[in-house]
């Protein structure tokens, strides 16, 4: 049953929250603000009672699949369990209710946490220093690219090219373009890894850096990473690693030992902070000693026994976020790392890899794996065989919803036809993985015996398959009583 919009529940005069009465003299705003600067009509927000709000947003929430309710094998997003303990710690008033400009003697506990988190991330990745300021993976990438530009600027030369493998996440080229670089794509070799010959050919003196993801989006470890780093360094170009897939490397290998010069981590992936339906995340950037001077400011430093903010450094690229970044997310990630500790992190990394390989082994007889070797934390299968029955990867994804599983990442990476990118994570049990295998194999059978069933999926959701073409051709992006952006469809049920 569909749910009307909160606006459609509005009753003039109804209220959902009461403010305390004023304890200071009342004023007419027109006495202190020029009339023409005042709002003439109140914003037409909904007028609803508290209980209306509770019921509306509780019911709406129940229309979502989530990690808490469903297996969510969305490749490269690391949808692992988000511990409730993290939420409890982040909500402590001593963290949640601090003002960013309180004197540093008021926030020593917070600064100690941030400082220690930087040290922990250095230990886990083998980098020399971190900034915690970027608020998501893509902002971390942007930060990294600005650092790359600053590095070459200090060497008094122009380097305008960033090399990016064709298997990369779309944010990589978008971040490079936003930073004023031009992007040159490096084709993957037949094994799905970077082709050293192709790399050599594209590695001109205009190359500022290579951006690579390791393990890559096929879930494969770039086994020649040390040679690749050496090739880049021979041209005094840098190696940027997109650390979105760091979950595979916990206790397995450290980017700092591979010749990586800088990387971003996605704390909302590897370090268990909740994805929130699309953020907030955090994308700390780690660098080698040689690049530390370029990190954004301010930086938390230790001065004797006290922690302080250092506002200026000689080579800084500047600021990428207001205040100090997504601190609430950082508190959660710190909690997670301290909870798991050394042994827990190693077990997380190992179990993520075993879970992925187990799932791959079970699915492989039905769904071919194009670049077949042992994978790290995720793998990619192709569903192109089902095309013969008129069934696409997107159809199978929708049918999976009917079986109670969120769908893997579809049609990505772009180098695999009809791709399904599957990442189970370490927090799923063998039983869940077996049920998922069973569902996918049944869907493959359905695709042959009753392809229409799969093509018309999903059938057990609140809505059937949505018309995305209409959504894009006739954009209706807000509710309005005057239907400015197109007719409001009739509500379903009530």
């Amino acid at each position, binding site marked *: 049953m569909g749910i009307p919009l909160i606006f459609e529940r509005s009753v003039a005069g109804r209220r959902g929250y009461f403010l305390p009465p*004023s304890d200071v003299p009342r004023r007419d705003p027109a006495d202190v603000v020029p009339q023409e600067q*005042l709002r003439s009509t109140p914003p037409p927000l909904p007028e609803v009672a508290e209980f209306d709000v509770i019921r509306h947003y509780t019911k709406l929430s129940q229309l979502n699949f989530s990690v808490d309710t469903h297996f969510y094998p969305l490749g490269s997003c690391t949808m692992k369990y988000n511990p409730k303990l993290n939420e409890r710690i982040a909500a402590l008033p001593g963290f949640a209710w601090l003002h960013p400009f309180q004197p540093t003697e008021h926030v020593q506990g917070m600064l100690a946490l941030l400082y220690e988190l930087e040290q922990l991330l250095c230990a886990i990745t083998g980098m020399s220093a971190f900034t915690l300021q970027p608020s998501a993976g893509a902002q971390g990438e942007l930060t990294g690219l600005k650092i790359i530009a600053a590095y070459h600027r200090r060497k008094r030369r122009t380097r305008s090219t960033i090399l990016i493998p064709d298997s990369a996440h779309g944010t990589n080229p978008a971040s490079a373009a936003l930073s004023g670089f031009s992007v040159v794509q490096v084709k993957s070799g037949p094994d799905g890894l970077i082709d050293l010959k192709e790399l050599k050919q594209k590695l001109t003196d205009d190359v500022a850096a290579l951006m690579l993801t390791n393990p890559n989006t096929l879930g494969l470890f770039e086994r020649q990473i040390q040679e690749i780093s050496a090739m880049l360094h021979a041209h005094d170009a840098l190696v940027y690693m997109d650390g979105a897939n760091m979950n595979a490397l916990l206790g397995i290998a450290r980017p700092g030992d591979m010749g990586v010069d800088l990387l971003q981590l996605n704390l909302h992936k590897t370090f268990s902070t909740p994805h929130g339906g699309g953020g907030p995340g955090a994308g700390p950037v780690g660098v080698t000693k040689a690049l530390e001077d370029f990190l954004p400011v301010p930086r938390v430093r230790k001065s004797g026994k006290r922690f302080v903010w250092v506002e200026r450094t000689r080579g800084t690229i500047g600021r990428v976020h207001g205040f100090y970044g997504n601190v609430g997310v950082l508190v959660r990630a710190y909690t997670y790392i301290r909870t798991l500790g050394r042994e827990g992190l190693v077990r997380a990394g190992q179990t993520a890899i075993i879970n992925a390989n187990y799932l791959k082994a079970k699915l492989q007889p039905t769904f071919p794996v194009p670049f077949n070797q042992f994978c790290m934390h995720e793998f990619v299968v192709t569903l192109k065989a089902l095309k013969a029955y008129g069934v696409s990867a997107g159809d199978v994804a929708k049918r999976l919803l009917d079986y109670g599983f969120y769908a893997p990442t579809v049609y990505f990476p772009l180098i695999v036809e009809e791709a399904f990118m599957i990442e189970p994570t370490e927090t799923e049990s063998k039983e869940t993985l077996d049920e998922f295998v069973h569902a996918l194999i049944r869907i493959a059978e359905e695709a042959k015996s009753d392809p229409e069933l799969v093509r018309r999926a999903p059938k057990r959701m609140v809505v059937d398959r949505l018309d995305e073409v209409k959504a894009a051709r006739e954009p209706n992006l807000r509710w309005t009583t005057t239907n400015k952006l197109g007719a409001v469809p009739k509500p379903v049920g009530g």
Partner: protein
Amino acid sequence: MDYTPNTDAQLYEMLKAIGVSSFEALIEMVPEPIRQPTLNVPSGLAEAQVIELGEDLAAKNRSLKHVTSFLGAGAYQHLVPTVVDALSARGEWLTPYTPYQAEASQGTLQAIYEFQTMICELLQMDVANASLYDGASSVAEAAVLAFRATERPRILVSEAVHPHARQVLATYLSGTSAMIQEIPTVNGVTDMEALGKALRDDVACVIMQQPNVFGCLEPMAHASELTHRPGALFVASVYPISLGVLQPPGAYGADIAVAEGRCLGSPVAYGGPGLGLFTTTSALLRRIPGRLAGCTVDQAGRRGYTLTLQTREQHIRRERATSNICTNEGWLALRATIFLSLLGPTGLREMAMLSLEKAHYANERLREIPGISAAFDQPFFNEFTLRYSETVDIAKVHRALAKAGFVGGFPLAHWYPTLPHTTLWCVTEVISQDAIDGLIDTLKRMV
């Protein structure tokens, strides 16, 4: 402790099913010399130990629940209704990701659609996206949009725009051919004469903030009109709660209006996570950065919601995308949606009015104190700049205030060396008259 359910016996069984005898066989592609390093990380802790550790660290901070803070300067403490915490803590809201599979994400998508609608109504703009990182990066993204849409190189930004926003703007635009020029202020507001002179037909946009960083109200309508004469875009950065009483950016012709939206139902949290609000006109719809939820129909003609106009975005358009943003601030956007539903038009106006009244009361009481005066003669909303006489040692006074449980105004010389002896004070509905009177008594004894 860890969160892996599979037992050692199960893992062994799984390894057998994979066809290997040990875990090491799975990672043979990781070169031997770099494989399985020692992690210099402390041992794990049990839940009770983690709680103790967290509470100890939190206890070393003086939270806003225990001090009376008059700090604003871009981070505003407002009431958060209990219902916002209760609803947003549900796992169905907290633990999904970006709603790629629309049919299994109708909750998140409808909430984004409601959010977009409310933000449009609050700012009186045509379109809002699903959020950007924070107010500062929203200013930067606005400039990127204007730079690309107008194909003009100059970005004019008032020096009364929050310094963090200007710094992020400078970082984002470094390496491009855009040029940033700052417009000076006179008596606490942007110098309209200087703006008029700087505005030529190579200007992409003018960025101003309302209320500005000094708390003063800017002549936005006049600035907008000046900006449009040579065909530049007018970008307004606003304070959402103030829009309960102040004119919204749509009313003075803003082409892009952005805001830091954390004050809508989320804690200050030491400045982050933030919530970047980004709105624009229908004319610029296809250039908007970030996610958009749209209303459509399903195969049976029933209403449903989906992410839309995705050909603007990085996962489709790659290096030609309108922005690189992927993960945004969805959970804070949900909190803002619940917050605005609860407050409604009446509650929002009351919250804004309480802030305005208390700030004006505090302002008048503070100016009674000899040695303290208004730095600028301008109308304000809930934040204002005071000047101490030159004999007052601000640092010393503020240390003494801290001992008495107060955090005094933000010393502006930190950002504006030409404004020594000035402090920026903010008052919202969370500050009581008793607290203001207590502050005055303490200050009177010291200044």
